[in-house]
């Protein structure tokens, strides 16, 4: 194999160490499902081996059940899709009573995505799940573009983010992952705010606000006018935002946005992401997350990498296409932030 400096001869795929650390949380591999694209996990369990995935991030749960937005909620766009679901979910009570036990029995590593209109609501969610078994961590959805209150816009204020993460930090020992919106003036600022507040990791990024028009009826295709754009259309955009977040903080960043294959996932790893989330791809191919895992492992093995960690950051500034040294390369970080 050629093209990747520093890689040795091909190794057996089985021998590639894909484990990742997100704060105190160690995952067997860097493939996570993106919240909202994998239900509560059990819905795909008859075709996906949940135990094999790094983690299942469940659909954002809120204090009370939500019925979601009026239809139309979905529109396909070139290489992407718009959604305006509106955080439809069963509510925390049913989630704890029904979904968590099911996921425990399926052997999944569960990261619970929580969403709230206020810091208080998020606190209530984290507190009420504090004693539940089978939770590996929380992802805080600071970035839903499809709700009137407590959405991406509300959480775009760095000081509010920092305060809220600090509040949650005091309530749980579980790892806290802040999921960020790309639709901000500076994702570095929101990323740093979450890090300062005590987040263990970040997810970059949620969907981009988008719109599509039904010309015949001269109205937006989505009833709520705008939605969140996902799919391959956003991958280059997401990659750039993710790189900016990686450069801004020392905590691990989970890349997300349009990942359909193992190669796509490795692009995020190459710019320094610790792990990745597979989202829209699961709607197209329910087994996409497992397929991404297998493809990633095969690519690394074919290129002679025994550890994912040896490839991480290879394409950061200062990474120089070579295996990045362990830990963050601060030169690369500064380089990115100083771009005009």
């Amino acid at each position, binding site marked *: 194999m050629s093209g990747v400096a520093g890689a040795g001869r091909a190794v057996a795929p089985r021998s590639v160490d894909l484990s990742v650390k997100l704060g105190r949380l160690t995952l067997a591999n860097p493939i996570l499902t993106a919240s909202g694209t994998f239900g509560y996990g059990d819905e795909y369990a008859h075709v996906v081996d949940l135990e094999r995935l790094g983690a299942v991030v469940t659909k954002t749960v809120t204090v009370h059940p939500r019925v979601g937005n009026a*239809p139309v909620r979905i529109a396909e766009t070139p290489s992407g899709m718009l959604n305006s679901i509106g955080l439809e979910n069963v509510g925390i009570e049913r989630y704890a009573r029904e979904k968590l036990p099911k996921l425990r029995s399926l052997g999944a590593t569960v990261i619970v995505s929580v969403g709230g209109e206020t810091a208080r609501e998020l606190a209530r969610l984290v507190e009420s799940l504090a004693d539940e078994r089978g939770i590996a961590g929380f992802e805080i959805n600071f970035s839903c573009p499809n709700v009137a209150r407590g959405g991406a816009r509300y959480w775009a204020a760095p000081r509010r983010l920092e305060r809220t993460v600090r509040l949650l930090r005091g309530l749980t020992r579980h790892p806290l992952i802040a999921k960020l919106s790309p639709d901000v003036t500076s994702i570095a600022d929101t990323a740093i705010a979450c890090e300062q507040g005590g987040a263990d990791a970040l997810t970059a990024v949620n969907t981009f606000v988008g719109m599509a028009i039904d010309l015949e009826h001269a109205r937006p295709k989505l009833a709520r006018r705008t939605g969140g754009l996902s799919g391959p259309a956003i991958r280059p955009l997401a990659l750039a935002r993710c790189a900016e977040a990686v450069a801004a903080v020392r905590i691990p960043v989970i890349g997300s946005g349009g990942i359909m294959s193992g190669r796509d996932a490795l692009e995020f790893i190459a710019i320094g992401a610790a792990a990745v989330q597979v989202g829209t791809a699961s709607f197209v191919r329910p087994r996409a997350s497992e397929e991404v895992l297998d493809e990633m492992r095969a690519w690394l093995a074919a290129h002679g990498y025994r550890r994912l960690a040896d490839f991480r950051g290879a394409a950061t500034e200062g990474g120089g296409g070579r295996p990045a040294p362990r830990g963050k390369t601060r030169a690369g970080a500064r380089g990115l932030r100083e771009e005009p």
Partner: protein
Amino acid sequence: MTPVAIPTRATLDHYRPAWRQVTARITRHLDHGAGHRWLDLEMPAGFARPAAGQFVQLLHEPPSPVLLPRPMSVAGVTTRRGRHTVGFLYAPVGAGTRALAALEPGDQVEVLGPLGRGYPLDAPGTPVLVAGGRGVAPLLFAADELAARGRRTEFVFGARTRGLLVGVSEAKTRLAGIGGRMHVATDDGSRGRRGNVLDALQALAPRLDGPLVLHACGPHGMLKAVALWALENGHSAHLAMESVMACGTGVCRGCPLPRSAESSGRFRRERADAPSLYGNVEYAMCCTEGPVFAAGDLDWSRVT
């Protein structure tokens, strides 16, 4: 309007996903008149036999010209030695179906299914199939299934004009074997009765033994008219609805339809048992609870 008992599903019976995503081979792909195509796919072993009214998510082999799979309702199934050949009748009207139309026998596609819930063909009463335009597809399959059960079936078929009565001759052949009749209506009177399917249905109903069990598919405006007529006249009606979909399996929550007050009430009472793949107290999901809904299950004033 006199109050009538609203026929609905008895309970929110459990949905156990039986779908798989498989690679299927095209065995037949032909013009079918009026710009429509007939597609036969040979399914691998292990793919469950679809029921009439169910659908599949059809996806091109990569590179696909579109991102999302396309929901396609099943128009017929033949089974030989445990292997199913699944037929589809469609019009190439969008980017996905136009690309599909270019595929040839021997080519492969990805199929996720069977999905959703179909028509309750065994419901007691006189079955009447009600088709509007290319909505005929699942009703051709329903006619096959009813014929296999030896149940005499009436078929009402409406379209704007005679050229759009796609598949009418086949439907007639299927009905002939069970002594059923075809009742055609066209808006322009170019064939059969001048008028729409509801006109034809209203003319036919007094001549049939009640109660009727209507199984319908077509534009939502037509389905709404059929549903309201059935509710007013004490018949049961089962309508195959359409929606934009992403996943087709209940996961993405992208295809809600507004529940009737009665359906909301039942959902509230039985919520503890309702699978999370179903909708919620306000919306039903088209892909898992449907695509076939009983007339009393939806709030037709909010169906668009």
